[in-house]
């Protein structure tokens, strides 16, 4: 039994299910679109102000939108109790977690790719710092959101109010990552400071929490 084959099969299955149902991506897109439009009506910032607030605005919108995908990823395993079919099989727990986290990463990354041009257009954004740095920030920030989100969504799976439980568990723990994402994005947009410290924080956050989630996921999956 190959660890990689199970991860690949589970990831392919999740992408196929999402492609057919479009449950998560549609809800995320709609939510993000609302945030962009509503905030653009609520504020009428100058280009300079936009550069300062856009980091926070963008990442908070993605964080809230990601919750939809994170809840959905395990909800489809609960329908018909399909998760029991995985648990009863000899497949180890880790490939399931990695596939789910990568699946969520892809869904949120697609959302970011579609929404970023809209944010740029609505808020008239033009980075004054090196804009290529936004790519590692986006990758590290998105992984920080989905790795913990996937873990805590699995943890809240058997609770009654799991859709409420996930943000309650996830948001406090995401504060250091959110600080990293917002400040590094603002640093690139304004060009006033270097984002290096915040990128390093994101790297450390991702390494620590990915390791912790991988170590603890089996216990979460086997919990009754």
């Amino acid at each position, binding site marked *: 039994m190959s660890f990689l084959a199970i991860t690949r*099969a589970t990831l392919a299955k999740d992408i*196929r299910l999402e492609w057919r149902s479009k449950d998560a991506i549609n809800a995320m897109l709609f939510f993000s679109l609302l945030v962009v439009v509503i905030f653009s009506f609520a504020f009428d910032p100058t280009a300079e102000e936009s550069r300062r607030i856009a980091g926070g605005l963008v990442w908070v919108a993605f964080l809230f939108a990601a919750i939809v995908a994170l809840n959905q990823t395990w909800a489809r395993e609960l329908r018909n109790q399909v998760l029991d079919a995985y648990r009863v099989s*000899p497949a180890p727990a880790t490939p399931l977690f990695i596939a789910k986290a990568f699946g969520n990463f892809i869904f949120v990354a697609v959302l970011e790719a579609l929404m970023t041009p809209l944010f740029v257009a609505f808020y008239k954004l033009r980075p004054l710092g090196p804009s290529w740095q936004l790519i590692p920030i986006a990758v590290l920030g998105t992984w920080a959101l989905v790795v913990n989100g996937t873990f805590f969504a699995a943890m809240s799976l058997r609770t009654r109010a799991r859709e409420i439980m996930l943000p309650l568990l996830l948001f406090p723990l995401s504060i250091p990552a959110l600080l990293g994402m917002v400040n590094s994005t603002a640093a690139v947009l304004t060009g006033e400071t270097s984002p290096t410290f915040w990128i390093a924080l994101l790297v450390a956050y991702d390494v620590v929490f990915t390791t912790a989630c991988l170590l603890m996921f089996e216990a979460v999956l086997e919990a009754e």
Partner: protein
Amino acid sequence: MSETQSTPVVVADGLIKQFGRFAALRGVTGEFAAGKLYVILGDNGAGKTTLLRTIAGLAHATRGVISVLGFAHINEARSQIGYMAHPSLLYDEMSGMENLRYFSELYGIPAADVDKKCRDAINAVKLDPDLDRPVGQYSQGMRQRMSLARALLNDPKLLLLDEPFSNVDARSAAEMAVLVAQARDRGKTVFVVTHQPAQLEAYADEFIWMELGRIVDRTATRGGRQ
């Protein structure tokens, strides 16, 4: 009786399973030999499903010991267990073949054999492997059969079936009963939890009666073999 048939496949000793303050199993003890069809009966809440889930490794005993297929740790036995629950354990948005292809990866079936194994399992339950319709659009009877095909996919030595005849019409239930008996005839040990014992009366080797989390009676039958 052959040596294989006399070897216990499941040995339970004083199994207790508690959910909070409620005890679903209250000291289940027994040995169950290989190659037999056991039918577990009892009222709702008697502990039938919990016992089946404990054997499958989906529930962990609060106290007591269980060994499955000679292994004290369930992880070592998982590749030889087939489990069918009351829900289908299938993805509604995928076809039967797509579902089985995915599950075959979880059982480490070599890529070259996957297609044949999936087709064999679906043919065995008398469904069409080429049916390109999502499982969510199947009738209840078809879904139950596909669920049985999934449980048979890894050619398990131990087959655990929870309510396989529920919500299916009489003809489908009778056909499913024959499939279950055929699995036993091929040497598998089969446990069936059901509220419809009449479906398996002609095939069962033993009826196990449960009450309030305990086995209260075991009745051997002639075990009609095909």
